[in-house]
């Protein structure tokens, strides 16, 4: 059996072995590294694209949100203004109504006073007349004689006036 010595140095074998390694380097580079690296790059590009899109979408959403919140706050202000206006209006109207009511109440009170005075006067007049009538009757009875009512009316009136003045 023809074999090499256990320690044998052969230049050609060394060179062949060196070349083998170089060849294998190119094989690994071309057939393993290049496809895998391409793949990873491709995937990274795809991922980057997705990220970019997501970012874009988020920015758009943020813009929308800002817009809507601005709009919303505008609406709030508007509502506030409307309420304020309405309240002012209501206040004004309330004031007018109260004022009117006051005026009318004053009128009523005044009227009532006038009426009362008139009534009083009427009552006073009534009482006066009754007193006159009564005095006439009394006088007639006291004098026991016929008294011409017409004749003495003036006299009694004077008398009553005197009493009134005395009163």
């Amino acid at each position, binding site marked *: 059996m023809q074999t*090499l010595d*256990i*320690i044998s140095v052969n*230049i050609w*074998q060394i060179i062949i*072995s060196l070349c083998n390694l170089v060849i*294998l380097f190119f*094989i690994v580079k071309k*057939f393993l590294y290049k496809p895998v690296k391409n793949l990873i790059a491709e995937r990274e590009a*795809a991922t980057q694209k997705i990220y970019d899109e997501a970012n874009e979408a988020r920015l758009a959403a943020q813009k929308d949100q800002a817009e809507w919140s601005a709009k919303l706050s505008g609406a709030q202000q508007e509502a506030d203004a409307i309420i304020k206006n309405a309240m002012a209006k209501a206040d004004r109207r309330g004031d007018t109504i109260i004022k009117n009511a006051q005026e009318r109440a004053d009128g009523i009170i005044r009227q009532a006073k006038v009426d009362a005075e008139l009534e009083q006067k009427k009552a006073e007049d009534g009482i006066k007349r009754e007193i006159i009538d009564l005095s006439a009757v009394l006088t007639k009875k006291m004098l026991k004689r016929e008294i011409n009512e017409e004749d003495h009316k003036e006299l009694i009136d004077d008398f009553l006036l005197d009493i009134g003045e005395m009163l």
Partner: protein
Amino acid sequence: MQFKKPDAKFKAVDILLLFLTALPFLAAIALKVLFMPAGDGMEITGAFIFFTIKLPVMDLPISEAQVNSWAVVVSVLFLCLYLTHGIRARVTTKRQILAEWAVEKLDNLVKENMGDFFMGFAPFVCAILMLSALSSLSSLLGLFAPTSDLNIAAGWALLVFFLITYYKLKGGPLYYIKGFFEPLPVMLPMNILGEVATPVAMTLRHYGNILSGSVISILLAGALQALTKMVLGKLPGFFGEFPFFQIGIPAVLSVYFDLFSGCLQAFIFVMLTMLFVSTSFPADEYWKRMNKKAKKQKLS
């Protein structure tokens, strides 16, 4: 993109590639069976020589180690083709995950040990790792491990030496020569010796470790045979002759010497390669030179 079921053609190519990955080893075994005279496997010798080519300086014997290392190269070629066959960005198959995992791990390893400047070394590191590991592991198939031939490991170490020198020269030839006179001019012989010692040490470390493993395995097998004869030799017929103790025990050692040691030595070789190449590169000097060159180009 939806998952596309692989069609028959794709599957056929897959199987063909897998078969072609295994074929070189099968062919090597066939060669061994056909051409090598049967022995009891107890001799401690070098690789079997198939034939010799006459060449100047030295004859080239085409040995089993050479053939097996070619088998490994071809096998790796088809393994790479298989791993990258039909890989796509979106569909993740198991082999794609494996391929990406390997590439990423090696990239990280190179990045950690050598830095970003040497990222181009990743395929080279992968190549050494695969070649060395598969060469050592081929002994599991009963083949002669190419790594237990001095010349094979020497070839790789020589290439590493060239790379080291190439990167040392990147700092300029003057800087390279100056490196030999440091720290003292008296150290010149020592420095030259140290320069030469690197590939020699790498060769002998790798080759010696793998060879010693197989030598120990053979010695142990012989010892176990002798032990069997001594203990059971008195038994009549078949029981007295069959080496019972050779069952099991060598397998345990094989796990260490063939499997573990083979992978470990490959890893050590790769680590040393990365270490030597990256430390041989004078980064500061190189960038200084590049800047100077760029300035000169701008001026002219």
